């Protein structure tokens, strides 16, 4: 009987996540554009770590699939 392995459940949970493309907000460049406060920048930075991992996994998988075909 195999012991409980957390890596199996974490991997399956990550692969179940449906990914949306990360939006990159354009920085306003004009002289009169509103300046963002550092407080707002901090809140913008905080992306869910699970989503970060899911994006990394998807990127590696995509590369794997590309190499498999070739």
């Amino acid at each position, binding site marked *: *009987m*195999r012991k409980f*392995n*957390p*890596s*199996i459940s*974490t*991997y*399956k949970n*990550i*692969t179940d996540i449906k990914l949306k493309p990360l939006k990159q907000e354009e920085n306003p460049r004009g002289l009169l554009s509103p300046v963002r406060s550092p407080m707002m920048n901090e809140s913008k930075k905080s992306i869910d*770590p*699970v989503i*970060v*991992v*899911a994006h*990394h*996994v998807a990127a*590696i*998988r995509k*590369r*794997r699939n590309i*190499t*498999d075909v070739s």
Partner: protein
Amino acid sequence: MYLREEPLFDGPIPGQGLTAELGSRPWQNPPQLSTVEEAIDYYVERLTDESAIDQIVNILEMGVPIADIANAVQLGMVMDGVHSVDVGILVIPVIIELMMYIGDQANVQYETGLDKTAKDGISDAKIVNITSKLKQKIEEKDSLPKTKEEKPEVEEKEEDKSVGLMSRRKV
């Protein structure tokens, strides 16, 4: 449930883990990498190193499941104080995917350990094999000529002889 047949005498004494000074262990100190992004960068850099790739390929060729390797790797890093337990759990899928990528590149037939394998339970083929063997044995026994007629043993029950003063007497 698995029960240990022999007592473990050389194991740690209860409470032995608390005898070291607080903060003397790496995992009792703040981790070197606090975010998932840092941990991913660390693992990608370490696992894609040439010497690491050779080791991983060797282990995969031995048939060790990738899920088990990934769990062991992240646990080792937690023990070394590189990252915390929760970051380690989060990073596991990246480690697994990286190892699969390395295995694919090296053309190794690796075992992921993510699916149920034959090791987890008894396979259908084994069950069919065993039942057919049992049937054969039963048929062989039935075909043998019976030399002695076995009489069914009937156990004679001894009637309880009542001994007490207040016991009922037989009429």
